[in-house]
């Protein structure tokens, strides 16, 4: 599903944000990505999402070399990927319901079907009464949940979630993680970047640990991940 071969990413005027990272995420896998602040987690997700291009190395997505993809193919690729951005990236002048509907409208689903799905999604995170609000008038945690269900809306084959529970209380955190887990159970490949050790401990899955842009640990054990961070 996601294959990186010696991928590096250097932002101009900086040391490398990603340094010779090679990894392989299979279809249907549920993977955590962790590591200290500034380690390169978001950068890795941006590469997978075709928001940035690697400085060197190869990135294969759905078996295709991303570097060889023409620019106009990117939107269609992205429709198979749901992303929860670390800073949410909600449209401030569209209602919550419209934000969640956006990935569906891009794909021109029938309006009735869109409304049905959006309602169900908002209900799943306890925001059914917030559909007509604009995002700036939501609390931080409410915005984060909107971002989560927008990523899930189009039932994408790949789900990237960058710190999707940073603004949530423990109960809401569990709720969101269950949503991601059940998407994974339906066959979606899920990559979650997180700092929350309690999540890593509760869900015993594969954990990738980044440090200074290098992949320092890749395995099922949370212990190794914990050792990875000094």
């Amino acid at each position, binding site marked *: 599903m996601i294959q990186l071969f010696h991928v590096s990413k250097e932002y101009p005027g900086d040391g490398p944000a990603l340094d010779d990272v090679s990894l392989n995420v299979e279809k249907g896998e549920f993977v955590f990505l962790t590591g200290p602040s500034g380690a390169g987690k978001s950068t890795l997700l941006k590469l997978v999402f075709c928001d940035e291009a690697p400085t060197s190395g190869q990135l294969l997505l759905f078996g295709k070399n991303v570097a060889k993809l023409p620019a106009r193919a990117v*939107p269609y690729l*992205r429709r198979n*990927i749901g992303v929860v951005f670390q800073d949410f990236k909600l449209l401030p*002048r*569209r209602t919550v319901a419209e934000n969640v509907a956006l990935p569906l409208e*891009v*794909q021109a689903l029938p309006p009735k079907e869109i409304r049905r799905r959006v309602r169900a999604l908002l209900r799943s995170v306890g925001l059914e009464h917030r559909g007509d609000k604009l995002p700036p008038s939501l609390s931080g945690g409410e915005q984060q949940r909107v971002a989560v269900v*927008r990523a899930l809306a189009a039932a994408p084959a790949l789900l990237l979630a960058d710190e999707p529970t940073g603004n949530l209380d423990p109960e809401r955190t569990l709720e969101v993680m269950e949503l991601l887990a059940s998407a994974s159970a339906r066959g979606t490949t899920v990559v979650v970047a997180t700092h929350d050790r309690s999540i890593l401990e509760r869900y015993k899955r594969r954990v990738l640990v980044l440090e200074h842009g290098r992949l320092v640990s890749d395995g099922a054990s949370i212990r190794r991940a914990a050792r990875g961070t000094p």
Partner: protein
Amino acid sequence: MTFRPLYFTRRAMDAMIRGPYVTLIGTATIFVAVFATGLFAAALGGAERLLAAWAGEVRISIYLAPGADLAAARAAAAAAAPGREVRAVTSAEALRDLAVELGDEARVLEGVGPGALSDEVQVAAPGISLAEARALAARLRSVPGAADVDYGEALLGPLERFVRRARTTSAVLFAALALATAVLVSNTLRLAVFARRDEIEIMKLVGATDAFVAAPFLIEGLAQGLLGGGLAAGGLLAAYAAVSPRLHAAGLGRLLTVRDALPPSLLLALVAGGALVGLLGSALSVARTLRRISTS
């Protein structure tokens, strides 16, 4: 991408209602720009008409030698200038006219004897060119009893040159103004799109094609253009209605009717121009923003 005009129109309307400030400024800018352009065009058109009407007032005067037969001269002049209006004026009438026209200054006529002015025959020659006026004057000189023929050569030449130059200059000025207007409007629309660049970026991130992102902006630009242009056309008509009593008072009411000053073709062109500049301005700035995002 499926073609969904209704969907995109709804999107555009939503955006305009929720971000009224940017929409209002865009519309106001187009309104002001189109109004100024229209005002200028109307003024140029009016000046042309005034000049033409003035050229239409050109008369050729045949001054008769003392004792000549006014009626016979009139008949001869009519024969030499077929199809033109010919009028006979006695010397007494001419002197009266002059005294009236001089008003307070009529006293300069004190040293002027009653024989200073002669009988004359006037030939109306609307729209005549300088060369034609000269030739006609030369022919009229053979009218029996004609002492001299006046066709205003002292003024017709410079007039023709002035009109020619004014016409070129106005055309250049008008082109410059229309261009400047288009630049100013498109600058405003650029900033309007710029203020919403985050939206464009986010839409691209959730898998929207360039066309999907651009469509509502284009419709917004078009709507602002139509609205601004339409209001400007309405504003020009209102402005005409406001000055129309003054035009009538100046005796120009018949010359500059609303259809003359603001012909439907001009109004239509203004609305269309507003719509075009709104559409193009939005299109260019959206294209630029999309390009900037994809290369970043």
